[in-house]
């Protein structure tokens, strides 16, 4: 039978390239990539849904004290029995700024940019995952 097919102690890069271990690792790599992709898609969808859940269908601003938000259509309310209580996503304070004028503690733009930044950071965190191949056979990959 000669050399074992899945030798982890293979020292020659060439025989590794020919052997079955490489094929096996390739396949595991594909499985892992697939997993990452599906996990990411699902996560992003869930994140988007979680954020969108706080977005009303329509919003009527009468003044800064009177705002009417509609979250459900009438059919949905009929189905649910009664509209569910909604909480606001963010807690924002009204403060007096340096120029002595009242302002919000977080500007609207900032809210949007933070959500986008969180999204980017999440995607970025998936980069630079070491390949199993390199961890398993450090003597072949230097």
């Amino acid at each position, binding site marked *: 039978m000669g050399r074992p097919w899945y030798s982890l102690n293979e020292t020659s890069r060439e025989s590794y390239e020919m052997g079955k271990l490489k094929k096996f690792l390739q396949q595991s790599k594909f499985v892992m990539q697939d997993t990452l992709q599906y996990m990411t898609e*699902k996560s992003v969808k869930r994140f988007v849904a*979680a954020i969108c859940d706080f977005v009303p269908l329509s919003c009527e601003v009468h003044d800064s004290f009177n705002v009417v938000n509609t979250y459900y259509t009438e059919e949905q309310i009929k189905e649910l029995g009664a509209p569910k209580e909604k909480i606001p996503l*963010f807690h924002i304070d009204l403060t007096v700024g340096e120029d002595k004028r009242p302002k919000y503690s977080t500007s609207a733009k900032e809210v949007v940019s933070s959500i986008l930044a969180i999204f980017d950071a999440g995607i970025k965190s998936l980069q630079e995952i070491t390949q199993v191949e390199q961890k398993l056979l450090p003597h072949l990959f230097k």
Partner: protein
Amino acid sequence: MEFRNPSKAPGGWLPLEAFDNKELDSRAPKDWMIIKRDKKKTKDGEAAASTEHDGNPRKTEIGAQGLWRDRDGLCFWRKLKIQKYLLTSERYEGYWENTKEKCRLHRIFILFDEEDPREFAKRFNVAFDTRVMADSLLKYNFYIENMPTHQIPEIDNEEVNRILSMTQNTKQLRGKSSSDTTTLLSEVNFEFAKTLNKIIFDKHLKSNGPNLISGPLVLPEEKPKEEAPYFGMITIPPHNFPEQFSNFCFNSILNKDQSIRAMQEIRKECNDVLMKDIYNPNITKSMRVTEFKQIQKSSTSQISYYLKETWVNKIKDIIKTQFAEDPLQS
């Protein structure tokens, strides 16, 4: 085809729409409503003057003919206008042109003006014939089920024993002779008697059918018997087995249980990863933006650490343990 009085047609007690073959329809139900609308637009463009006459914009009304039933159950084809399609009941709703009465009809009773009547006739015919056949089959089986069974011989002992030994020859059942088989056996016996009756009935139906039963039966054609194969096995063209086998072993990674086991464990690890989240989608209270950022960040760094450290190393270890060199093998 006589259809003046549909309830007197053979099999008329069965609803015709149940035998309609939808695949024979040239358009989907929705398309019957849409295409007309488009056409109307162009028509309107051509003859704008005529529509202005009416003044009011018309709703979609599609000209068609439907089967109209009068009080005595007699049927005529009459003009009607279809207004909409009801998805759940699969009926078209509209009104009769002469009486303005509302009506709901199944597709099989409607001939659209735009439709090729020959196609419709074909389709109607198929439904009609299928119904006649269904009616005959029901009667046929009814006759057989009601033939007396008490003079039919039962399955003899030898056969019963063979059935019992074959059916109880599984891991779970072996050796448990106590299991009660009498009800099951009587069911088998009943089927046996019914089959014998069917053979008898078939024979008499062929020789003097009309005298035996009340009306003619239209039965589907008998399937020709399949030719018995000469061999009890499948024939494979000649080939070089050792060579193909060695090729397979050389190219496949599924010929060693270590690799199969390893792949299975890797998949399990990956399935665990699929359950994880990059972000935290469970927001149950209002919070400041900074707090929100913090929560999301911690969940992101958690998954990042898990993937880079735990996950990859776990998979590495799986491969290492599975493929650890067996001293006996090398």
